[in-house]
Structure formats: C-alpha cells, structure tokens
C-alpha cells in the first residue's frame, strides 16, 4: 500500500505537475513563434513571465497550508519542484528584460536599477531566489543542516512580498491585480503566523506537563 502511493506520486503526480508547470512557458513560446503575442510581443513576454513567477511563488507558499488543511501530506513532496519552477520563470522574466527589452543596454539597465524602485525591488527578489535554488538539493539540505536550511528558505516570504511590491509599483492606475496577489500573500502569511503560535502553545503545554 505504502509502495503503491509512493509509485503513484513518482510516476504520475510528479510528472503531471512538471508538465503542467511547463505549460505557460510552452504556450508563450508557441505564441511567440506564431506571432500571437499582439502588437508588443516583448512587453507580453516580460509580463507573462513576471506573472508566472509570482504565481509559482505563491503556489509554493500555499503548499504547507494546503497540506495542513487537506491532510494530504504528500503535497509537501511537490514543494521543491514548484519552488524551482518559480525560479525558472524568474530567470525567464529577468532574461527577457535583459535581452529582449533592453538588449544589454547596460547603462540603461543600471539607471533602471538605481532609479526605479520597482526594478530595484524586482532585482533584489530575484537575487534572493538564487541561493534558494542552489540549496534546493538533498545534499545541500544535509550540508547546511535542517535548522539553518529552513531559516534560509524562510526568505521566500520576503521574496514574495518583494514580488508583490514590484508589481504594485509598476502599474499606472489599476492596482486590482497586485492587490489580489497581495491579499493572497497576506492570507498565507497569517496562516503561517497562526500555525506557528499554535505549535508554540502545544510545545509549551508539553513542556509544562513534562515538568509536572
């Protein structure tokens, strides 16, 4: 029985999640090759990849709450892959800015980073994602040790906040979408704070009963 669900996860669930996660990039490529990105394809590519970066960050953060609320513990096993997809889309987003939008105009890029808060925040978030991707392997997890690894990977909350701020600062007037993403993030953060407190309470109660 245990073997079966392990096989199910490895042979069916993980590959499915993998291919579904690749779908936005595949579609984007298809639209680009068939000239279906509208009048300003570069803007469309930068935006779509940015959207998916933020979405994958939020999905990654939603995994623990979903696991807790649903009781499907195997969901946690998908977190690394989904987190790496967030990094994948972030790379796509950054590269499309660098190559398609700016075409290596380093002077302009530097000015953007220094003078445009929305770019600054985006870049900081992206740079912070790199160590998380690098340390995502089992080997690195062991090398760092569970506690330290976990503390490092908690920075994904800050990265997601950066992503929402980046979006909020980018829009001209219609803040609806960044507000929606921001609200989801706040919900996820509150859930985390709430479950942290509950754990803390349980631990204290245990410690208390142990002394008695």
């Amino acid at each position, binding site marked *: 029985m245990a073997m079966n669900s392990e096989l199910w996860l490895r042979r069916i669930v993980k590959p499915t999640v993998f291919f579904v996660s690749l779908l936005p990039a595949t579609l984007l490529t298809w639209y680009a090759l068939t000239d279906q990105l*509208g*009048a*300003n394809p*570069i*803007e*469309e590519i930068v935006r779509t990849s940015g959207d998916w970066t933020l979405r994958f960050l939020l999905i990654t953060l939603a995994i623990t709450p979903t696991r807790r609320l649903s009781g499907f513990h195997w969901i946690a096993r998908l977190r690394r892959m989904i987190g790496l997809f967030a990094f994948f889309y972030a790379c796509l987003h950054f590269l499309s800015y660098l190559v*398609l939008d*700016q*075409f290596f*105009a380093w002077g*302009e890029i530097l*000015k*953007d980073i220094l*003078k*445009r*808060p*929305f770019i600054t925040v985006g870049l900081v978030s992206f740079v912070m994602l790199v160590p998380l991707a690098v340390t995502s392997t089992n080997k690195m997890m062991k090398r760092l040790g569970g506690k330290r690894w976990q503390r490092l990977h908690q920075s994904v909350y800050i990265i997601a906040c950066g992503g929402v701020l980046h979006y909020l*600062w*980018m829009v*001209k*007037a*219609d803040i*609806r979408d960044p507000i929606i993403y921001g609200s989801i993030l706040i919900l996820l953060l509150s859930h985390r704070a709430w479950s942290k407190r509950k754990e803390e309470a349980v631990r204290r109660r245990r410690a208390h009963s142990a002394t008695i």
Partner: protein
Amino acid sequence: MLIKAPKNSDVSSSEITDETLFRQRRRFLRTAVNLALTSTIATPLFVPASARAGTKLSNVKKSAYTIDEELTPFEDVTHYNNFYEFTTEKRDVAEMAQGFQARPWTVEVNGEVHKPRTFDIDDAIKRYALEERIYRLRCVEAWSMVIPWVGFPLAKLLKDVEPTANGKYVEFTTLHDPERMPGQRRKVLPWPYVEGLRLDEAMHPLTILAVGLYGEVLPPQNGAPLRLVVPWKYGFKCIKSIVRIRLTEKQPRNTWQVNNAREYGFYANVNPNVDHPRWSQSRERRIGEFFKRKTLMFNGYGEEVAGLYTGMDLAKFY
C-alpha cells in the same frame, strides 16, 4: 505659422496596397461574422452605414503635415492601445469596445465663447474639410506608432464658436456612460476623463480632431466618433470619444494629473530629458521594431511647437 512643405512624404503606394488587401480579407471575415450576429441582435441596424467603423471616409485630402516613416499596421493600431473606459488591458480594448454605438452623437462646445453651439458629429464631418495627417504617437508608457489619422484642425472649430477674451484654456470631456463603457464601472480613474490644452496649443495647426484612421471611420476602440490628436504630447492627452469642449479661464485639471500629480502634469510634452518618476522616457519601442529608438524632443515636432514653450522650465511643467 510655419507650414511645412510636403517632404517626400507620400508613403510608398505598394505598402498601402498590401495593407488594403490584407484588411479586405480580414474585413470579409468580419463582415460574415457581423452579419451572423446582426441577424440575431438587431441593435446596430439603425446606425447609418456611413457612420460604422470600417467605412471609408470620402473627400479626404492629403495634408502637408505628414512624416516619412513606415506606418504602424492597421491591425496593431486598432488592437493595442489604452482606453481605460473599456479596459486597462491594451490588448483587450478592441474586443471590449465592439458594438459601442457612436451614433447619434453630439458635441457641446461652450464656456468662454461668444457662440456656443452643439454639433452633430455628422454635420461636423461635413462642415470641416477632412485631411489625412500621418503623425507619430508616443505613449507615456514608452512605446510609439505612426498613424494616418483623418480629421480637421481643432482651430477651425474653435474659430466658429469665437472664444472670448477670457477663454484661455480648452477643456475636453469624454462620454461618461458606464452602461456603454464598462471600464467606467470600476473607479480606476476619476470619471469622466478630462483633458486640457492652453488656447495657443489648441489653435496650433498640428492639433486636430480625428474622426478616422487609415481612411476609415474611427473604430470604437480608438475613440469613436471624435478624438483629439496632439502629436507632440504623450498619448494620454489625446482624449477620446469627446462629448464636450469647454473654453475656460483657469487651467483645467486633466484626469491623469488629478490621479497622480507627481507623475503626470498638465503639459505632458514628449521629452526624453524628463523621466517619468518610475521609468525612463529617453527611449521608446516603436511597435513592430526590436531595438528601442531614441525619443525625440516634442516627439520630433520641435521645429513647429518649441516656440510655444520658450522660457518655460519643462522639467517643472512636465
């Protein structure tokens, strides 16, 4: 006022032919779809054929005010633009504006004028000789197009209503009708959209009221039936679907300025040296091109309009 001699400004005829053919094919499909639709939904039937988007405008003269640059394809001009009254998604405006009825339509012209009057849009089109003007359009978001507008100088209409000595500014207002303009159901901007010009800017021969593009009646997504075109200013000054033109003594508060005065001013002249607080204005992406181009002072119309702003600090009056 200086009149520019027509440079070798005529766009090569082969280009236009291609464009026309391309559109005819598209239009054939569209007509087929429209026919299928109108037979079930009868509303557009009472709109005179001459007023429908896609109809050729007659008696359009070529104007000396034109530029020798490749036109942005019709498809891009009509499927990528900002018109928040319909949606904030540039690529969706055309679809959201489908079926917008721009007839009957009247434009009130009043305020500080001796002869206030209300024009029916079709009377105005008959009254003022239509010209084709090929202008650059530079959006504040740093993309640009080259568009063959059809319209007439705003100055002609203003002369007809005779501004009084107190008429120092011109204020324009867009239709406010959330039933027909679904974007207005959300308060993204303070509706109705308002824009303004100084009287000398409004009287400038480059300033036109457009009723068409590519030789055809203006499609709803581009501001039917009547919009302003001021080619040396950022696109948001070119207010669409105008219902009122009012002459005022005080400088009007234009919508984007009301929304965020730090980022958008009254003048909004295209200026590569004054950045938007959140992005650079020094370069722009011409739609259809890969490399960005340098943005030109006054969008390349400095020769004609720089004189309007002598002595003004353009970093302050942005």
